[in-house]
């Protein structure tokens, strides 16, 4: 700090400048926020799915927030295969029970965690999903086993509204 005394003018400069800066900053926000998801997008933020038509061993893909979501009714073999894996073998360790609320139903965002392609179902070395873009292999629980993807396929928020219906989002 200098030895100069603080004058009335200094005070006015700083308060005026601060108010102007705060005002300008608050005015910038609408121009940034207008690019965020708008009300019409948020209104579509959840999707309800009827599970009755899906037989064991079948999958469907539904659109949720513009993204594909895989819903697979797993076979008993797939479930036991997923549960049998030791967590030590996994690059992103996660127990199958943490990934499927009901072991029969696997619900996950169908986007490869590497760079956003859609993996192909029941392909790859682990009988789960295989991403054709850069060769990531996922197992029957959608966990990454081999390849460049860093994490398991994402599990969206979902609830079973009843035995036959789930709500994603």
């Amino acid at each position: 700090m200098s030895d100069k005394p603080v004058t009335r003018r200094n005070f006015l400069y700083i308060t005026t400048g601060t108010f102007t800066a705060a005002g300008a900053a608050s005015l910038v926000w609408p121009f940034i926020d207008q690019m965020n998801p708008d009300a019409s997008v948020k209104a579509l933020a959840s999707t309800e799915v009827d599970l009755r038509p899906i037989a064991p061993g079948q999958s469907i893909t539904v659109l949720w927030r513009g993204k594909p979501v895989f819903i697979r009714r797993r076979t008993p073999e797939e479930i036991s295969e997923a549960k049998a894996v030791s967590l030590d073998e996994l690059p992103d360790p996660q127990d199958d029970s943490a990934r499927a609320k009901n072991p029969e139903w696997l619900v996950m965002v169908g986007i490869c965690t590497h760079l956003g392609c859609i993996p192909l179902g029941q392909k790859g070395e682990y009988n789960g999903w295989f991403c054709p873009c850069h060769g990531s292999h996922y197992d029957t629980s959608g966990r990454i086993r081999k390849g460049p993807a860093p994490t398991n396929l994402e599990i969206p928020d979902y609830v079973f509204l009843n035995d036959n219906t789930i709500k994603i989002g």
Partner: protein
Amino acid sequence: MSDNYVPKSAVGKWFNERLPLLDLIYGHLMPYPTPKNLNYFWTFGGILTFCLVTQIITGLVLAMHYVADADLAFASVEHIMRDVNYGWLLRYIHANGASLFFMAVYIHMARSMFYGSYKEPRELIWIIGVFIFLLMIATAFMGYVLPWGQMSFWGATVITNLFSAIPIVGESVTNWLWGGYAVGSPLLTRFFTLHYLMPFLIFALVILHVWALHVPGNNNPEGIDVVKGSQDTVPFHPHYVVKDLFALVVFLIIFAGFVFFVPNLLGHTDNYIQANPLQTPEHIVPEWYFLPFYAILRAVPDKLGGVILMVSAIAILAFLPWLDTSKVRSAKYRPLYKQFVWLFFANTIFLGYLGAQVADGMYLIMGRIATVYYFAHFIIILPLLGYIEKTKPLPKSLSEPVLSKEEKEIIASGATT
């Protein structure tokens, strides 16, 4: 203008030696010598620059959400108003910003007329200004079409039909403009493209406008020549930077008043009805800032004549520096012109009033009289005044009119010894 500007930072120095951009900006914003007596009417140049930048920025973000298609445009504007985060604010700023832009430009032009700023050696500044005004008219009109409401649609229909008044090729020209046989999607899409382009052309012209202004320097309320760097000038910064900023703050308060309290006051309710090519609204009016010219168009009972007169009403402005034959600039020293210029302003506002009325009966007759007077001001009054008017003696410096008698005597005696 800025021979001795040296940036403080090393990066600034490095940059400025290779491209003296900072030097250029500094020269035009900081030491630029400005007459010391400029009043608040001289703050509108800065306000207008602010308006242009505001329109460009809000327009840019609106264009991220708008869809230029006849089937989707109206809904996309409603989407902006209801769904997009702060969309209502951005659109209201843009729509009211256009109106305030015109308010400011009319005051700016009136100031130039009152103080004779268009006269030698500032003719080119004025002419560039007239072209900016023309582009503003085109931009504002096309922008008003984009929401695709009833007024948008029928305004576009009426204005594009003006071209059908051209003899022989009129119909081909309008069909070419429309990209069809009536106003529709092709016209909307090309209007959107041009509406996006034109503000940048205006911006380029504004640079020329300021460049041309900074050659002779500002005119001033006394209208006399001022020697740059003399006691009659002060540096632009801080004197006029602060004055311009203060005026801008007052302008912004009015702006905010419109945006937050009466955002639709200057618009027309019919434009919240989606365009219907099968039904014309009962009473079509353009935006308020076009009303005087609209009144001139309707004053003539002939299609081609009306169009020619309306275009001439704007084009004649470009010839103002030569139509006004008086050598004295400021109306302060022109007792007759001072009355006539106020009469001209009043007449133009009256034309605006008439433009909003139904073109019938008395309104039509008054419209014709006002139109004749509008042109008489330029073609008869201004050229004649230069010869018959006895102007008041001009002061020798900007200080002289504000000095006391004693002070003047001191200066006079100092000058003789």
